[in-house]
């Protein structure tokens, strides 16, 4: 749990795109293990297969796609934030406090395995949103989206007993398709405008 929090804060502070992708991959792997931890290390077949799918996709496939994209684009390997790294970290701490405050109040169906799970999931979602909002590159927005989704599946992990696996897999499939689509879209944006800086796309509005 604490690790997840630290990873989130790290993401807010990192400036190199490649490292960012790696960190998101690590977060994905942690999420894959999470259902197992929450279930008290009791190996059930559907949980194990589920964890393997998550680790495979989030830990290996997505980062591979993104790193390949990064290499193809020959872009600056910098994150280029609207909001500085220091400020981002500070904002992250504020968000952590807020989500801890909220997490206690959220009415959850069933009992959570750990009282920290809900706030952390919340914090991850907020970090994702913050990354999307505060960074310029389209690639970082894909990363933010992935982090956001990690938060959602972290929530899902709380309810792993109640929630049918199909829904979880459905979300995963959505993300999978989304990463593909966004990867292709970024590639085209780059070819068309020679950059993936969303800040400069304002001229497209009518």
């Amino acid at each position, binding site marked *: 749990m604490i690790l997840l929090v630290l990873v989130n804060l790290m993401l807010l502070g990192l400036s190199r795109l490649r490292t960012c992708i790696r960190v998101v991959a690590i977060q994905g792997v942690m999420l894959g293990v999470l259902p197992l931890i929450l279930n008290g290390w009791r190996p059930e077949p559907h949980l194990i297969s589920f964890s393997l799918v998550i680790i495979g996709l989030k830990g290996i496939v997505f980062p591979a796609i993104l790193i390949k994209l990064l290499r193809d684009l020959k872009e600056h390997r910098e994150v280029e934030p*609207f909001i500085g790294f220091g400020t981002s970290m500070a904002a992250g701490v504020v968000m952590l406090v807020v989500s801890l405050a909220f997490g206690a109040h*959220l009415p959850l169906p069933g009992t959570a395995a750990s009282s920290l799970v809900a706030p952390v999931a919340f914090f991850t979602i907020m970090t994702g*949103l913050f990354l*999307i*909002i*505060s960074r310029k590159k389209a690639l970082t*927005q894909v990363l933010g989206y992935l982090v956001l989704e990690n938060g959602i599946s972290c929530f899902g992990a709380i309810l792993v007993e109640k929630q049918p696996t199909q829904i979880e897999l459905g979300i995963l499939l959505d993300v999978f398709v989304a990463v593909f689509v966004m990867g292709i879209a970024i590639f085209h944006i780059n070819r068309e405008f020679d950059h993936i800086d*969303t800040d400069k*796309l*304002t001229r497209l509005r009518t």
Partner: protein
Amino acid sequence: MSFFFWGLIIILGGGVLSLFSGHKPKWSSFWGSVGAIIGGSIALVPATKVFFSGQTLSWRSNWSVPFGSFFFQIDAISAFFLIPILVLFIIAAIYGREYLLAYRDRKNLGVPLFFYNLLLAGMMAVVVARNGMLFLVAWEVMSIASFFLVTFEYERPAVRQAGLIYLVAAHIGTAFLIVFFILLAGQGDSLDFDRITAVSPSLTGTLFLLAVVGFGVKAGFMPLHVWLPHAHPAAPSHVSAVMSGVMIKTGIYGLVRTLTLLGPPPAWWCWTLMIIGVTSGVLGVLFALAQHDLKRLLAYHSVENIGIITMGLGVGLLGVHIHSPMLTVLGFAGGLFHVMNHAVFKGLLFLGAGAVLHGCKTSHIDLLGGLSKRMPWTAITFLIGATAISGLPPLNGFASEFLIYLGVFRNDMGEGLNHAIIAIIIIGGLALIGGLALACFTKAFGVIFLGLPRSDHAEHAHETGPGMKASMLILAAGCILLGVFSPLVITSMRHVIAALAPMELSAIQANLATAASSLGYFVKMSLLFASVAAILALVRFLLLRGRSVRQSVTWDCGYARPTSRMQYTATSFAQPLVDLFRFLLRTRKPDSRPQELFPAATTFHTDTEDGSEKYLFKPAFMGIRWVLSRWQWLQHGRVQLYILYIALTLWILLIWKLM
């Protein structure tokens, strides 16, 4: 009920088949129209059964949507509206097959045929749906299917404009209806129409107004009618026929259905309906008089006839309010019978206009002329339709207007100023409408079909094919039969009126019988008159037989070289009346009379803009646009900030929920 569903399935199946065979125009049009014809005929079986017997058929099933259920029911009112819908759609499908084949090289015919069948299915669902949600869904299907039909010739800018106006108007109406149903839903735990019983009296007034506006947009009440003069000329003619003939009647149906839900009417509802009726009627016919385009003219006549129907409903409602059986029965009977009659004659007139457009490639009245020689079948059927819409006996338009007249004349409203005013408004209004309609159709028929061709378009006109001719002939026969047998028709309307009015069936029957007998005199007199005319024609024929008859030009006032352009134009024919009402019409006539001694070539045109469009909707929409443009800084193109908006909204919702 199963007959009804089978009909629905066959109609939709035909539509889908025609959509997928769009690359083969012959097959596509075959599947589409055969689906509509067979499915429509099957669905006609339960409708006629219910209409004559008065029993109700229903079918109910659960639906997971909140407040929704699949609750269909055919009662007398539904059946009464279903019959014209199905009949007109079947006839127009025969017509549309040939009409659309003229576009086979340029267009994929699968699309309009599919939406035609979808429109039919949507309208059938509208009149049998007995649940608010189901009703709204059916209503939207109907609006959207008709939008795609209106924009059939989308490559013309005018058609795109018309489609847009129609779409916006239709959804403004739907917005009011959504509010209407939300308010109704707040009253109980179900939106099934049979479970809505106790609506709190404080709310009925609001609900009534919402229904008047929401359904009035579709029906075309006067200030809300703006889409009609745009959409009808843009749509293919058989679509205009069904849109004007029956689709706008779903607005009337909705209003009638609402009245059955809301309980006893206060006086001001009756007043509202009557005033809307008279305004729509008189202004509709006046604007029709000033038009230059045949289909636009007919569109304004739809507004006029909706006005007459609404007047009938208002009179009937007043009868309910003051407990006058005579007024109730005759008002409702007149209004509803006019629904059926208007479907027949307006359908016929639009099909006639389509035939003219098909044969001459233009529907501008002042460019036509002399078509009775070139298109005799179209001319004679158009004449019958024109006579019917002008309310002349013994055709069907007369019968329904006569019922309203009779109701107000033989009223037992008692003494009092209010009632005298009502009588004057209704009788005066109806008489004015009738007279102006007659003038308008004299103009339309005279200029289009009589005289000499005014342009090459009319010169090279050709008669339509057998299918189009047949469908016009069927409708013309319908005008005559509904008129001649009107006493029979109105007595069989007893179940419909019983569903509307809180009265005993026997009392309704007695009142209808008196009305039918007075109507019978008129019919008999007119038939007598017609037979005298026929005998005179026969005598003329016998006298002239065997003698040589020479045809020559009309007296040409001594002009050496008269040309066809010296004929009376439609504009000049209507000019005295248009001038008389210029305070309402505000026709623009730029004066460009030649001033010099040796006049050069000059032009003249008149232009009548729609008042409510110019003075009501344009300022309103400009205002909305101005207000919204104040907020345009919100749309700046930065993706990040857009996402921030979403995030903030979610945050606020979350905090609000946790508070």
